[in-house]
């Protein structure tokens, strides 16, 4: 990522711009001095449109603040609680006096540290529902027992690893709490750069600037994902990115790509790209070339890792790349700000930065292709808090989408095309298996999202369990495959009215009449619950203009408007509507009440 000096990082913070941005409140609990991390966090936050405000707990007051909460450091407005609990301060025995300890003493001290972790963690959660990011303990670079250490399972390293395992388990059980692995940061830059012994002794500040920059980058991967700013699509140039040389000039046998140097650098880069696809990232090409030359490489080069079917969209032509990126985004139903662009040409990179600044750019290192793989692996733009089944299958789903588009051209009218897809809908109330994907959809969906209310797993669980709320999901299959859970409706029942708190569909399934069937089903649910009217809500954002008239188009009337929120009403006393005829099957459990008790925690 950016390697600006500390002064440049501070200088890059634009006070005027920051003042108008929404706040991101970070509370830092620590037993060491880490204050210089703040400019890095603020700079990263500014990059995704937030004004980060960091507040520190007193030095070595983790327990007091977590349990006592007197200082008001943690409160319901906190967005993120960041914990730096360093073993050197927490347990001198385990960190620096380990060699002298007898097994029973080790055990007793480990127990004490575990109790501390449990109490502090529970104390934080009592005061705030915010995301907890807890930095795990660093492993010693020179372990207490030297080379004998790794031959036994009660050496210092093993004991600290056990503490980290324990911490991960505690955080995992808590929910919305994550383990940040400082050992990754340490390994990336090396211990000699990670620690600054001068400030450890002078000011109890163990970490160098470089270390704090690395830690801030790591911490921000979590925050970016929480705030719904994970990127969705990687758009790649071809010549000198996927292979060395120019296909148009060097030809199929002349380009560099293979298992040995120099082609191996490109081979490894392609593998890293493919790994992202397995995590749910969509791949696209944007290249100035003759299209047929590029596809020939994909088809005929023996060492291509990427195949044509991995590519969801391509613009291979001689036109302006900014326009091409806009077209790719439109074709994939994504916002430009979901795209990441990779190109070896400074000209193209600068063009995108000025004409399509929403697009994130990965700058390829000047070391050349040998450094490409790591640059991609390090960027963190695509990191998500969880990887769902839908993520793992996404690439295949986009491929199916391409087949659908091909088929669409064969049909004269839309309805017979829809019928040919053999679509089957499954509509159910949220259960423990669907909750992670449902909350993920509320966090990631921007365009077909009527109110853009974002919910965590815990929120959805609460809504699903509530007496007067219901969470409905939609799953779609067709002859090309299973799209998984692609629609969510949150219903709130208040005095014989069903309020559509949210209604959203994944951009992948738009344009197939699915929304009509889903809405009709949800309305039928409201009728079954003896509601006299349905209230649809629309809250405009920068991205959901396309659904501004969704409720009007479906027979609702505008009844109220204010504070940006528009409310629409549809009477249900004479409701007689049915789903469009072209679905092969609609398997719905909304028609019966017994399903209401279906949601059981931990069943």
């Amino acid at each position, binding site marked *: 990522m950016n390697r600006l*000096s*500390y*002064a440049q990082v*501070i200088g890059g913070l634009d006070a005027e711009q920051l003042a108008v941005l929404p706040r991101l409140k970070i509370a830092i609990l620590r037993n060491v*001095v880490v*204050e*210089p991390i703040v400019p890095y966090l603020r700079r990263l936050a500014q990059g995704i449109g937030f004004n980060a405000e960091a507040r520190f707990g007193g030095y070595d007051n983790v327990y007091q603040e977590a349990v006592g909460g007197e200082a008001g450091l943690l409160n319901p407005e906190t967005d993120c609680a960041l914990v730096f609990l360093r073993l050197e301060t927490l347990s001198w025995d385990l960190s620096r006096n380990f060699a002298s300890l007898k097994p029973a003493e080790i055990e007793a001290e480990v127990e004490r540290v575990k109790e501390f972790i449990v109490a502090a963690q529970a104390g934080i959660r009592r005061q705030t529902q915010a995301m907890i990011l807890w930095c795990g303990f660093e492993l010693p670079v020179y372990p207490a027992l030297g080379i004998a250490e790794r031959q036994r399972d009660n050496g210092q390293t093993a004991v600290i690893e056990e503490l980290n395992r324990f911490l991960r388990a505690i955080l995992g059980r808590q929910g919305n709490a994550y383990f940040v692995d400082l050992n990754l940061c340490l390994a990336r830059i090396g211990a000699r750069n990670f620690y600054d*012994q*001068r*400030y450890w*002794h*002078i*000011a109890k*500040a163990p970490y160098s*600037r470089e270390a704090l920059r690395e830690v801030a980058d790591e911490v921000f991967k979590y925050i970016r994902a929480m705030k719904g700013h994970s990127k969705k699509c990687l758009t790649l140039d071809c010549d000198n990115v996927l292979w060395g040389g120019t296909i148009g000039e060097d030809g199929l046998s002349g380009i560099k790509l293979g298992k040995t140097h120099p082609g191996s650098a490109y081979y490894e880069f392609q593998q890293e790209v493919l790994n992202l696809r397995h995590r749910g990232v969509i791949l696209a090409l944007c290249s100035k070339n003759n299209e047929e030359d590029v596809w020939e490489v994909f088809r005929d080069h023996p060492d291509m890792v990427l195949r044509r079917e991995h590519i969801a969209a391509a613009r291979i032509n001689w036109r302006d790349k900014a326009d091409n990126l806009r077209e790719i985004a439109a074709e994939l139903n994504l916002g430009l700000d979901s795209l990441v662009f990779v190109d070896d040409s400074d000209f193209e990179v600068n063009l995108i930065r000025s004409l399509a600044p929403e697009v994130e750019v990965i700058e390829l290192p000047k070391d050349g292709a040998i450094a490409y793989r790591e640059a991609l692996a390090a960027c963190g733009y695509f990191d998500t808090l969880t990887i769902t089944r839908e993520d793992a299958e996404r690439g295949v789903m986009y491929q199916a989408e391409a087949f659908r588009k091909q088929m669409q051209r064969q049909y004269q009218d839309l309805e017979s095309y829809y019928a040919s897809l053999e679509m089957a809908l499954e509509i159910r109330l949220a259960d423990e298996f669907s909750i992670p994907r449902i909350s993920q959809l509320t966090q990631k969906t921007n365009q077909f999202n009527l109110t853009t209310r974002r919910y965590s797993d815990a929120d959805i669980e609460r809504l699903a369990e509530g007496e007067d709320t219901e969470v409905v999901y939609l799953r779609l299959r067709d002859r090309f495959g299973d799209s998984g859970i692609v629609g969510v409706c949150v219903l709130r029942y208040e005095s014989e009215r069903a309020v559509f708190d949210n209604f959203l569909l994944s951009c992948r399934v738009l344009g197939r009449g699915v929304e009509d069937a889903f809405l009709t089903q949800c309305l039928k649910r409201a009728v079954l619950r003896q509601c006299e009217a349905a209230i649809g809500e629309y809250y405009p954002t920068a991205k959901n203009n396309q659904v501004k008239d969704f409720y009007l188009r479906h027979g609702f009337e505008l009844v109220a408007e204010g504070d940006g929120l528009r409310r629409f009403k549809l009477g249900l006393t004479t409701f007689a509507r049915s789903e469009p005829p072209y679905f092969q099957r609609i398997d719905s459990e909304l028609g019966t009440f017994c399903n209401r008790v279906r949601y059981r925690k931990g069943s």
Partner: protein
Amino acid sequence: MREKVFQIVSQVMMVPVEQINEQSAAQNIEAWDSLNHMNLILALEEEFGARFSDEQIMRMLDIKTIIAEVTEMASYAGNAG
């Protein structure tokens, strides 16, 4: 180099550069606390490509000493900064 030091002190301590002079020191600049001292030393190291020892750091609490230490460091490096 003297001006560069003034500029860095001004930036780190959030004091207008006109108010920085040879007499400026931790004692007469309010923002010059232990945290900002750390920030200042790191900014100087970054700017001059230097690295100060813990003992130097504890001495560099006024502009005169800072300039002296930076000058000495630069002459070792055979580079006037």
